[in-house]
């Protein structure tokens, strides 16, 4: 060995050996660096702690900006915890990996045969190779899935194994993931970030690439479509934005080119599965599911599930759709099964099991139970089913009473429990502030079926504990991830995900068929973004008027302010506010009400509410929002977070946040304009925005100018209206200092070129409506075309001279009527769009029980 000592004496590694306990990935027991780490350590030391810290910051920034997140259930920090990545990868040498690959493939083959047997002949139970209670008492054994088969050679299509290395340096399996393994997408995202943060290191290290794995997965999923299906449509079924790994669902859907759908996007008709898209129903052939199997079909599985698709299981049973992994495959996620794998491997494969599991005892077996109860203190105890409270109990952490209680539970229903030897995990270097320290490490490896074999992702998702000698490493417990580098002996050719084929022109799939739910979400993003922006602009106008009242204290300013405050309530639809009961008091001291309008997320129409709703809608269509746009959404979320955590106590304090939010919202609309193709998704988003802006502009004009005011007051009001509509500069340039209702209406109602004006919105909305999908006859207009044409015409036929005229009761009746009528028409447009294009399902019920009983 060539002088290992100097290497470990560098700045980064100086205290590393002090923390060593078990097997270490980087160091020999004596403290010398393992051969395959030498280059890495030399490079890291070369960079120095300072530069490394910068890379670490850069990593965090990249992950944050791409919105890579992980939801921790019941997290006080809120949803979407940022994904954490330690920039020092886990290194595995090629030769060791090849060994591991063979073992993983063997294990996948074995589990596949077991799965096929359990939902088929159940020979393994009949022959006594698997004790009946081990399967029959497991909540993942779904009798309804009996006999449902995936076409092709494998029932287990995707598989992941959680690997740990014991003190002897050998890998063991800590757990099997067989129903909807998560993490492959995070592994891919980690890799993407690493190649940006440490590009030269990555290049020099000759790391195996991941793309081929995903390409195989795509090919496999396509091959699993029901027979006779030429160009299969594949969707990724997600439980939705509240799921812990939702980020990954949208990321993978995008990367693999599948539509991201929720249960309500799919429907079973004529025995087949269809996606409800804007263009109608589109047949779905393969479903890559991230919904737990029990939740997938309320007809035959959990009847209270809102995440599933009624009738899905029967469609799969009839072979008209393929669900991957098949429903029921969570039966293999039974930790007690590990105790029987060696014998099953001999029986089914005629080979010894290459990759052992962590030593496991199933309490349903009398001898094993005795062993477990006698050694409870040094065991990790689990239930065989992953219930709602899936916890592992560690004997050594329990009190005598707790142990006695556990003993009682085990003796009452022994078959529900198993115990594993508490394992000391191997350690890998984690980057702390300015040095490396050993931390317990767990590696999730991913496999995918291919023709008659499996392939292993060369790499995986590595997670490290945050403390020394921790026993459980899981993302739910705040583990940090690492990229996993399998070092190739020679450089590898770059593979792209996309197959280059010459024979077929690429299929052009406009919009990738937009699910109706996605269209609806985009439409509401447009509406809420606009509503939020308009609220802020108006509030800023109100604030500056408020300051003037305080400064000058004259009556006219007070009256202007009162008028603007009333308009604010009307515009935000937050009555009573400044118009209803108790309005007088609030007008005298408007600050609390205004702060509530900004901050109260529970209050419909408040700024907080609008932005939260906008962000929630965005999460639902995450797969359709570009990385740059998502960064802006992130900024908005962060501002909201700030407002929630340290709410401003006065309006003056809120000003900065309001400015920041307006900037973010403008950036959002700019990005939407500049980077979204004009497909149906954009049309709905823009339609939402135009409709909302037209409505709000109308409401503002009606609230401020429909009643005549004293001239000075009216001047001030018009000034504020122009500010709120971003039109003051244009107005000044055009009309100098002549402030007149007529000219203000010219600019804000009828000017086709003013992007803040009402007619402009209506014309744009009309364009959008003309481009909506759906059959239309050559001559007849659709209902929404009729309505928008009427609104446009109404506006174009009006004359601002007349609109500005004041009639009886100091009312501008013409203006009032016009605005009422156009608002009504726009409301009708919104209703028609909603009922034509968005899905409306009445509530789902169980059929009432039938028996008349004797």
């Amino acid at each position, binding site marked *: 060995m060539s002088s290992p000592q100097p290497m470990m004496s560098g700045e980064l590694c100086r205290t590393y050996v002090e923390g060593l306990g078990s097997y270490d990935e980087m160091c020999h027991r004596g403290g010398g660096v393992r051969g395959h780490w030498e280059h890495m350590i030399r490079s890291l030391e070369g960079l120095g702690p300072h530069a490394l810290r910068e890379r670490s910051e850069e990593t965090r920034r990249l992950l944050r900006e791409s919105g890579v997140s992980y939801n921790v259930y019941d997290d006080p920090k809120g949803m979407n915890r940022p994904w954490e990545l330690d920039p020092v990868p886990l290194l595995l040498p090629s030769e060791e990996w090849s060994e591991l690959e063979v073992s993983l493939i063997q294990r996948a083959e074995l589990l596949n045969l077991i799965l096929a047997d359990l939902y088929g002949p159940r020979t393994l139970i009949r022959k006594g190779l698997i004790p009946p209670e081990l399967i029959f008492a497991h909540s993942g054994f779904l009798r309804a899935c009996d006999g449902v088969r995936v076409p092709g050679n494998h029932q287990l299509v995707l598989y992941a194994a959680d690997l740990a290395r014991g003190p002897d340096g050998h890998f063991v399996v800590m757990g099997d993931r067989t129903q909807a393994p998560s993490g492959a997408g995070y592994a891919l995202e980690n890799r993407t970030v690493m190649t940006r943060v440490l590009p030269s290191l990555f290049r020099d290290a000759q790391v195996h690439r991941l793309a081929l794995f995903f390409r195989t997965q795509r090919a496999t999923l396509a091959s699993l479509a029901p027979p006779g299906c030429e160009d299969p449509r594949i969707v990724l079924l997600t439980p939705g934005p509240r799921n812990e790994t939702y980020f990954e669902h949208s990321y993978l859907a995008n990367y693999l080119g599948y539509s991201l759908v929720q249960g309500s996007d799919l429907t079973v*008709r004529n025995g087949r599965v269809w996606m409800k898209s804007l263009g109608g129903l589109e047949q779905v052939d393969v479903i890559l599911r991230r919904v737990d199997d029990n939740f997938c079909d309320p007809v035959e599985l959990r009847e209270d599930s809102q995440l599933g698709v009624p009738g899905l299981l029967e469609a799969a049973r009839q072979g008209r759709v393929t669900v991957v992994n098949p429903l029921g495959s969570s039966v293999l996620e039974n930790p007690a099964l590990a105790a029987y794998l060696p014998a099953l491997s001999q029986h089914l494969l005629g080979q010894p099991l290459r990759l052992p599991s962590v030593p496991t005892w199933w309490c349903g077996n009398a001898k094993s139970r005795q062993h477990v109860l006698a050694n409870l203190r040094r065991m990790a105890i689990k239930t065989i089913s992953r219930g709602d409270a899936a916890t592992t109990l560690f004997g050594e952490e329990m009190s005598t009473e707790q142990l006695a209680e556990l003993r009682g539970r085990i003796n009452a229903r022994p078959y529900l429990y198993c115990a594993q030897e508490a394992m000391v995990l191997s350690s890998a270097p984690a980057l702390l502030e300015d040095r490396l320290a050993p931390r317990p490490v767990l590696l999730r490896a991913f496999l995918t079926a291919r023709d008659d074999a499996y392939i292993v992702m060369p790499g995986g998702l590595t997670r490290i504990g945050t403390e020394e000698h921790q026993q459980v490493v899981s993302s739910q417990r705040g583990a940090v991830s690492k990229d996993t580098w399998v070092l190739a002996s020679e450089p590898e050719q770059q593979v792209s995900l996309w197959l280059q084929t010459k024979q077929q022109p690429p299929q052009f799939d406009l919009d990738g068929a937009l699910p109706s739910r996605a269209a609806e979400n985009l439409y509401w993003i447009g509406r809420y973004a606009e509503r939020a922006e308009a609220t802020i602009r108006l509030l800023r106008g109100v604030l500056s008027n408020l300051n003037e009242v305080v400064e000058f204290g004259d009556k006219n300013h007070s009256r202007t302010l009162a008028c603007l405050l009333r308009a604010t309530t009307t515009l935000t639809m937050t009555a009573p506010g400044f118009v209803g009961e108790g309005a007088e008091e609030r007008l005298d001291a408007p600050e609390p009400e205004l702060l509530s309008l900004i901050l109260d997320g529970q209050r419909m129409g408040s700024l907080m509410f609008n932005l939260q709703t906008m962000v929630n809608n965005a999460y639902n269509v995450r797969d359709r929002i570009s990385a740059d746009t998502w960064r802006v959404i992130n900024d908005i979320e962060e501002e909201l977070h700030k407002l929630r955590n340290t709410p401003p106590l006065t309006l003056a304090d809120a000003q900065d946040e309001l400015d920041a939010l307006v900037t973010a919202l403008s950036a959002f609309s700019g990005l939407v304009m500049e980077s979204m193709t004009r497909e149906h998704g954009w049309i709905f988003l823009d339609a939402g925005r135009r409709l909302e802006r037209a409505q709000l502009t109308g409401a503002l004009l009606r609230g401020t100018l429909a009643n005549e005011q004293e001239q000075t007051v009216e001047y001030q009001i018009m000034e504020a209206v122009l500010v709120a509509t971003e039109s003051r500069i244009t107005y000044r340039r055009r009309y100098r200092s002549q402030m007149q209702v007529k000219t203000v209406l010219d600019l804000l109602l009828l000017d086709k070129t003013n992007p803040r004006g009402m007619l402009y919105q209506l014309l744009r909305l009309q364009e959008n409506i003309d481009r909506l999908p759906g059959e239309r006859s050559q001559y007849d207009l659709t209902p929404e075309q009729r309505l928008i044409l009427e609104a446009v015409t109404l506006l174009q036929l009006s004359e601002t001279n007349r609109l500005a005229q004041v009639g009886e009761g100091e009312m501008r009746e013409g203006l009032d009527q016009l605005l009422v009528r156009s608002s009504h028409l726009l409301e009708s447009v919104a209703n028609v769009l909603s009922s034509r294009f968005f899905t409306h399902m009445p509530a789902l019920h169980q059929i009432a029980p039938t028996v008349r009983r004797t």
Partner: protein
Amino acid sequence: MRYRITHLTAYHYADAVSLSYNEVRLRPLDSDAQVCRYSRVEIDPIPNERTETTDYFGNHVDRFALQTSHDQVSVKAISEVEVKAAGKMDLGMSLPWDEAVEVLAKGGLADHLLAREFVLETPMSRPMSELREYALASFPSGRPVLEAVHDLMERIHTDFTYDPGFSTIATPLSEVLEHKRGVCQDFAHLGIACVRSMGIPARYVSGYLETLPPPGKERLVGADASHAWFSVYCPNLGWQDFDPTNCIMPSERHITVARGRDYSDVAPLKGVLFGGGENKLSVSVDVAPLLEE
């Protein structure tokens, strides 16, 4: 005996149902004790899609979907079944119950291993210490298992009052035990849970019972009903049925439709629907004996 069974179920909804998916277990199965000569299920309105399969427990399942708006559904199952008269069984021949438990634990035969599925608790037949206590009186050490169960059946029949107004499908066993009231379904679940609490496999059976008109009266058409009882596995004699509601060992007059771990495995009709609102349900069952040819 031969029977023609007509089982009509109809729902009327207050609001239109736009879409529904349904599962029907109404066609009698074939077994050693009975042959189903034919059976069919008629559905109105005519479904867009229907399939027929056999489920995990060997029961016939008809599934159908209604995709067009409807405010009523009727499901009519018609079948002809020939039930064989069971020979007189000597319950004393069965293994002592404690020995049976040991034999089952040893495994060996596939039938024994598979029967162990029916020892495990299910949501509708959760064992409680009170249940085992109640059962114990019938299970002195060394008593042949089927004799013990027969005794248990007699005790249930004596101790419990038949009361159609007391329970619903959702009533838990603990309440049935506390008030000592219920209907066939409750007594079947009670028997199952008691037997299982002793470590013996038991399963739920749904079906019909031919009702005899009072002497001198005509048989009323459509006045029959669904019935339920339970079945117990004895390692040396196989499965044997017990009807605790009537305190008899089912023979020629019991027609089996389906079997499972508890009611939820054999519900005659279940499913989900969109819309519907309030509904009105009507059920009529007719078990007509046919003259032997």
